[in-house]
């Protein structure tokens, strides 16, 4: 299983990578620094789950999710974002996101969100 981490912040991509390990998930991770780059990665790599930031320049995480759904992708998708209003939670859910992890986060938050998808 391969997981794609999409975040314009290199620091956050590093933190997500580390937190995944701390949460006990040792899957293959690939990174993209923008939604556009994520779409390019998807053309050449089999991705099973996308962990994406919401607030990114140009094409944001929600735009990416909508684009994937429009293009017929069935890849599991979750947000890792600093914004977590109830409005955003419901927008994410309505758009087909499997979960929304709020920054700051702990390994437990990752376990809770990802175990139903990746298993324990």
């Amino acid at each position, binding site marked *: 299983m391969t997981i794609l981490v999409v975040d314009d912040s*290199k620091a*956050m991509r*590093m*933190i997500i990578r580390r937190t995944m390990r701390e949460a006990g998930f040792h899957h293959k991770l690939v990174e993209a620094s923008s939604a556009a780059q994520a779409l390019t990665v998807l053309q050449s790599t089999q991705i099973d789950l996308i962990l994406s930031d919401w607030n990114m320049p140009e094409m944001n995480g929600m735009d990416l999710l909508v684009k994937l759904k429009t293009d017929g992708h069935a890849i599991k998708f979750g947000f890792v974002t600093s914004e977590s209003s109830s409005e955003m939670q419901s927008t994410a859910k309505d758009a087909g996101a499997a979960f929304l992890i709020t920054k700051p986060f702990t390994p437990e938050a990752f376990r809770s969100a990802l175990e139903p998808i990746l298993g324990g």
Partner: protein
Amino acid sequence: METKLIENAHQEDLDHIVDDLFRTMLATEVTPVAEYLPSDEALITAIIPFAGPWKGDLVLECRRPQARYYAQRFLQIEDLDETSDDIPSTLGELANIVAGNLKVVLPKGVTMGTPSLIEGKDYTVRVCGGRTVCCRSYSTDVGSFLVRLIDGSTLVGEGQ
């Protein structure tokens, strides 16, 4: 219609968000202090803009050596090179997390931009027509940092 924030209205929210962020992701205790950053030392400033029914900016700044310490703790890298890009990237991400959590208590419909970063000496960040509504320094065991919330809204009929 634009909204104007009342001075200090969100100071407690900011205190809570900053404390939670540093405790959770840097394993670092923060304490509010009355200390301001000297402009003649090398500083890093991260700015997150807000737009929509309320306009303003969240500013997080500290001296360069403190930014390096925070990056080392955030990324769990023991000896980060002093010139590493991970230092400003970390400060931008810390500001992004504070702003994102604050957005929940800001007027409905406010949108948030991505971080802008400034590094150097002898500079001051001002927002045209802006008014600082929250300003607090926080000390840690590796030095202090400053968080400001600037209201960039203009009230209709406000002395223009």
